[in-house]
């Protein structure tokens, strides 16, 4: 449908005002909110993700598109809630205790939301138990943790150890990231995945949840 394609196109151009205008028009024309979301907004962000991975576009392009996505999503959200449209999945994210670096974590949250996930962002300096308590309360299936200091990385292991002690490590998956973090570290502490950037986190989480 042209209107949905136009939504996807305006999103890819990073035109937040046009994306909001077209989303509003689609709502007025009684297109289902889920269709507008999947075939308009998420479709546009999927192209953005593909182009970014292919180095055809760069981070600023992705973030301008994300702003446009959010503009459309703000209009759809009450309708999606009203119709109880499920999201792709729920992810709790945060920067671990003792660490206040949050730019990377913010970018991951933005990308995941652009891919249709519901994000519960706990901010920075998050105690281990809070990640888990929030995941349980919100019925999230993934905890995403960020650290930018080698001294705070051990707090990622604390979360994973608590999940194991409580028998929750099959129910709630863990993914980690941050400049000093690596695949090797993820394996060492028993994290389910490591992501090197926001776009990569989408692929990794979809794989964890069997959505790939």
């Amino acid at each position, binding site marked *: 449908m042209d209107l949905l394609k136009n939504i996807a196109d305006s999103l890819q151009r*990073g035109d937040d005002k046009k994306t909001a205008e077209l989303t509003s028009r689609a709502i007025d024309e009684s297109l289902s909110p889920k269709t507008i979301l999947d075939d308009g907004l998420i479709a546009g962000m999927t192209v953005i993700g593909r182009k970014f991975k292919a180095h055809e576009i*760069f*981070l*600023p*392009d992705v*973030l*301008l598109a*994300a*702003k446009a996505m*959010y*503009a459309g999503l703000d209009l759809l959200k009450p309708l999606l809630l009203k119709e109880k449209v499920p999201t792709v999945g729920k992810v709790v994210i945060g920067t671990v205790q*003792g*660490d*206040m*670096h*949050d*730019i990377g974590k*913010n*970018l991951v949250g*933005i990308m995941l939301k652009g891919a249709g996930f519901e994000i519960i962002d706990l901010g920075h300096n998050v105690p281990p138990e809070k990640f888990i308590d929030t995941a349980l309360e919100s019925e999230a299936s993934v905890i995403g943790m960020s650290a930018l*200091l*080698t*001294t*705070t990385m051990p707090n990622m292991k604390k979360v994973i150890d608590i999940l194991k002690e409580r028998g929750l490590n099959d129910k709630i998956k863990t993914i980690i990231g941050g*400049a*000093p973090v*690596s695949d090797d570290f993820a394996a060492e502490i028993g994290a389910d995945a490591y992501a090197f950037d926001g776009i990569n986190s989408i692929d990794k989480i979809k794989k964890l949840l069997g959505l790939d």
Partner: protein
Amino acid sequence: MKKILEFDIEDLIPAPENVLRSQGIPPGAEIPEKISELADLALELFAELCEPAGLIGDLSVSQFREIYSGEGRNEILTPVAKIFPLADHLALFAMTVGEPVGERIAELFDTNEFALASMLDTTASEATELAGIYSEQAYLEDLITAGDVSPESFIMRYSPGYCGWHISGQRKLFEYLEPENIGISLTNSYMMRPLKSISGVMLVGPANIHKFDITYPFCDQCIDKGCRARIRAMGN
């Protein structure tokens, strides 16, 4: 002797191409107008918000040996451990571009201005590095002018958390230099506040003391490897 540094904000404004490169846009790439405009806006915002402050403090080799030992968590072999005993002059440093930039970045994220927030964050990081470069050049020039070192001397900076010097080394560095006096504090997890701050040691001496092979185990984890270009610039 400790010295508070004065910065001209103009000296800390990074070149737009460096900001864009740090955003992942390679040199020579075609840059859409909207992205150029974002970069310009980020630079303008940074110039408005920047509150730079810096402090350096001379110290002896033996004083730095005590500071460098930190909490005993350094790698055994490091460039700093090799170089500092041979340095003609050493100085600890700490500098920041201030808290308001970080606060604005957070506000921009909260209002969905993600691209500008990210661009401003990159600008602030580049500017913090420029503050380090400016400071080491100024320190070296002062030493040369005073006749304390030969004009053929070179200077290189090292910071805790890099090159095998454990981040916990910040603790003794802060105890000696007291950068709290210029608004830089250290958390229990050795994180500096404001976030856009740097600290470390500047080592001054002839070129031969600074050269090392980039074959330490921790070099693999280094994304930057800025030392390579600096060592090459010292010539043979």
